[in-house]
C-alpha cells in the first residue's frame, strides 16, 4: 500500500474535522431515520444471523469433538477447522455488547480476553494437573472461572503440539473430554444468547421498539445508539488489541505481542472477520442516508476505507510483523490504523450525531 495524494487530503480533512469539531446543529440536514425500522433492520439482517452462525459453528465443533474423543479420525481431523469457524464467528460479534451480550460476565465466558496476565494458560494448566472430573460436565464448567471455558481456553488444548488431545493415554483422554466440555459450554452459551433474543419479552422486541417501562431502554433511539457505539467500539478494539500491538512489535521484535488466537494461527483472519463485521454493521445501519449534503464526502470516504481494509488489510496483519523481513510492514499496518481510526472518528463525530444518535456519556448532562 502507498499513501497517495487523495489519502493525504483525506487525512488532512479528518484532522481538520477533529480539531474544529463543529456541531451540526442549525444546518440543513436530512430527516433522522425511523429508529424502530433501523433497529429491526440491524437486528434481523445483521445481529441475529451472526449469532446464529456462532451457534451453528460451535454446535458443529461440539459434535465433531464428541466423535473425535470417541475415536473417529475423520471428526478429529475436522476439529481445527470447526474451531477456526467458531473463532471467526465470534470475531464478528464480540464487540456487540448489547441485548443478551450485555449480561455481566457473558462475553468473558465466550472468550476471556484480553488476558495480559496469562490467567487462561495458568488456570487451564491447573485443571489439567488436577484432572478435575467436575470440569468435564459443561454445565459445571460454565460455573467455573471464565478463563477455563471459552475459546482461548480451548485453543490452549487444541494447539498444544506436545500433548495432543487424541491419544491412548489417560492424559490425552482427559484433555479430549475437557476440550469437548469447553466446546459444549461455548455452544450452550451461544444457544442461550439466541434464545434470549426471541419471544415476546426477548431482546429483539425490546430493542426494536422498547415497551413502556422497559428496564434498559426508554426510546427506540437508545438501542440505535448502542449499535453506533458498538461499531465505534469494534473498530477501537481492532485498533487497540491487534493493530497497535503489531505496529509496536515492528519496533521491538524481541518482544512478541499478545495477539488473539496467535497459537492457532488465526489472528489475521480474526481481524479480517472483525473488520468485515464492522463494515456490515455500518452498511446495515444506513448512517450515510442521514448525512447532510455538505458532508457527502464522509460516507464516500468511509466506503472507500472499508473497501481498502477488506482488500489490503488481511495481508497487512498476516503473521507477526518483523521489520527486517518486510520493510513495508510497518507502513502497511499504519495504513490499516489510519483507515480504522478515520472511520471510527467520522462515524462518532459526524454520522451518528447527524442521524440523531447519542454516542457520548460524559458530554451529555455534565458535572
Amino acid at each position: 500500500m502507498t499513501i497517495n495524494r487523495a489519502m493525504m487530503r483525506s487525512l488532512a480533512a479528518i484532522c481538520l474535522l477533529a480539531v474544529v469539531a463543529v456541531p451540526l446543529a442549525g444546518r440543513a440536514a436530512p430527516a433522522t431515520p425511523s429508529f424502530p425500522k433501523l433497529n429491526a433492520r440491524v437486528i434481523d439482517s445483521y445481529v441475529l444471523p451472526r449469532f446464529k452462525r456462532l451457534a451453528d459453528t460451535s454446535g458443529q465443533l461440539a459434535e465433531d469433538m464428541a466423535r473425535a474423543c470417541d475415536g473417529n479420525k475423520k471428526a478429529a481431523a475436522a476439529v481445527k477447522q470447526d474451531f477456526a469457524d467458531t473463532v471467526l464467528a465470534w470475531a464478528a460479534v464480540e464487540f456487540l455488547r448489547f441485548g443478551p451480550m450485555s449480561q455481566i460476565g457473558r462475553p468473558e465466558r465466550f472468550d476471556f480476553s484480553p488476558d495480559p496476565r496469562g490467567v487462561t494458560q495458568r488456570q487451564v494448566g491447573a485443571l489439567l494437573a488436577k484432572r478435575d472430573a467436575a470440569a468435564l460436565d459443561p454445565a459445571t464448567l460454565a460455573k467455573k472461572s471464565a478463563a477455563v471455558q471459552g475459546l482461548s481456553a480451548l485453543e490452549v488444548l487444541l494447539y498444544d503440539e506436545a500433548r495432543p488431545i487424541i491419544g491412548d493415554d489417560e492424559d490425552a483422554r482427559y484433555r479430549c473430554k475437557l476440550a469437548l466440555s469447553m466446546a459444549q459450554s461455548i455452544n450452550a452459551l451461544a444457544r442461550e444468547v439466541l434464545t434470549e433474543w426471541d419471544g415476546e419479552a426477548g431482546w429483539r422486541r425490546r430493542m426494536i421498539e422498547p415497551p413502556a417501562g422497559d428496564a434498559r431502554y426508554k426510546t427506540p433511539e437508545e438501542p440505535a445508539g448502542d449499535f453506533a457505539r458498538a461499531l465505534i467500539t469494534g473498530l477501537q478494539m481492532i485498533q487497540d488489541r491487534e493493530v497497535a500491538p503489531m505496529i509496536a512489535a515492528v519496533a521491538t521484535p524481541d518482544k512478541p505481542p499478545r495477539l488473539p488466537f496467535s497459537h492457532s494461527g488465526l489472528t489475521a483472519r480474526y481481524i479480517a472477520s472483525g473488520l468485515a463485521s464492522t463494515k456490515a454493521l455500518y452498511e446495515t445501519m444506513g448512517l450515510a442516508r442521514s448525512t447532510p449534503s455538505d458532508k457527502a464526502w464522509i460516507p464516500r470516504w468511509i466506503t472507500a476505507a472499508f473497501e481498502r481494509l477488506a482488500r489490503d488489510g488481511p495481508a497487512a496483519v498476516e503473521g507477526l510483523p518483523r521489520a527486517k523481513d518486510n520493510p513495508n510492514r510497518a507502513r502497511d499496518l499504519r495504513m490499516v490504523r489510519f483507515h480504522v481510526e478515520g472511520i471510527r472518528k467520522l462515524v462518532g463525530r459526524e454520522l451518528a450525531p447527524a442521524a440523531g444518535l447519542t454516542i457520548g456519556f460524559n458530554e451529555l448532562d455534565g458535572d
Partner: protein
Amino acid sequence: MSSMAIDRRHFLIGTSLTFAAASASRAFAGMLDDGAQLGVDAGDLVAACRRPDGSYSVVVLTLDGAVLRELPLEGRGHDIALDRASGQAVVFARRPGSFALAFDIQDRREPVLFTTPANRHFYGHGVFSRDGRLLYATEHDNETRAGLIGIYDATGGYKRVGEMPTYGIGPHEVILLADGKTLAVANGGIETHVESGMSGREKLNLDSMQPSLAFIDSTTGRLISQHMQGAGLHKLSIRHLAQDARGAVWFGCQWEGADAETPELVGCAGLDQPLRIIEPSKPMGAALAGYIGAVAMSPDGRIVAASAPRAGRIVYVDTERAVVVGETQLMDSCGVTGLAPSGFAMSSGTGVLQADQPDHTHLRSASFPGRSFDNHLRIIG
C-alpha cells in the same frame, strides 16, 4: 461541627448494598478462579462506569485492558478519593446522589456503603485527610441550599462526624493542598434543589450565580481566603481543581452563558493570588465547547491537563509558562490523571482507556467494550 444520625431509610439501603457490593466483589473473584484474585499494582487505575447492561459500578483497571476489580453501585458514580497509604478508596455518587462506597483497593476488607444525612446529598467529590483518618466530601444542604463539606471518620465505618461550610453554593471538587491542612473548594455557584418532580440537577440561579474558589482550614473550618470570578465571568462555574509543583491551584470551568460569549476555561490562583484565566494565543473556550470535565496534574507538577468531553479533547498547559503545550483527541474523553513519569492516563464515555504524553506521544490504549467511564479517573500510587 456537628454530629448526626443516619435515618432508617438510609441505614437499610446502606446495609443491603454493603452486602451486595461485597458479594459482587467475591463473584468477580470467582469469575477468574476459586478465591484467587489478580493483584492490583501501582499504575493501575480506578474509575466509576456504566456497564453494558446499563447498571453502574466502580472498576479497577489496567492500561493493558484487564478489569481487576469491580463493585456494583446503586446509581451512577462520579469521582474516587484515594488514601494511598492505607489502600482505601471511596467512590461518590454523582450529584444529587447520597451514597458513597468505601472499598479496599486490594480487597482485603469488606466494602462499606455510607450515605449523607437525609437532607444532604453529595456532589461527587471528596478527599482524605493526609493521615487517612478523615474523609472530606462536598455536599449540598437541601434546606438552606448552601454548600458544605461533610466529614466522615474513615477509621470508624465512615460515620459522619461533622460538617463545615464551603462559603458558596454548589461546591464540586475539593482537594487537599500540599501543606496537608488547607482544603481548596471549587464552589461552582449553581443552585440546585432536590424535590418531588425534579431531578435535583436543574439550574436555578444562572443569572445570579457567583462561583468562587475557597481555601479552608480543614482543622477548624475557617475560611482562609476566597476568590470570586471577575466582572463578566460570573457564569463561569469553577468545578475541578489540581495543585501544581509551585503551589498554585489550577481550575477548570464550565460556561453557563451564551455560546457566542464563551470565555477561556482554565486558570490558576493561590491563597493570596486572585483567579487568573489563562489566555492562549488562539482562543480555545468555544472550541472546547465551554466545558471542562476534569483537570489533573502531571506527576512532576508541571503540566496540568484539562479534559473537554464535548469537544473530544484534552489540552495540556505548562503551569510555569501558563501556555497550552499540546492536546490529545479522544471522543467523549473526561477522566484524566497523571501517569509517571510525565504523561497522563485518560478515560472516555466510549470505554477507552488511553495513555499519552503532552508532546503528542501516544503511549497505549485499551478498549473496554460496552462500558462508559464516568467523568473521573484516578491512578493507584
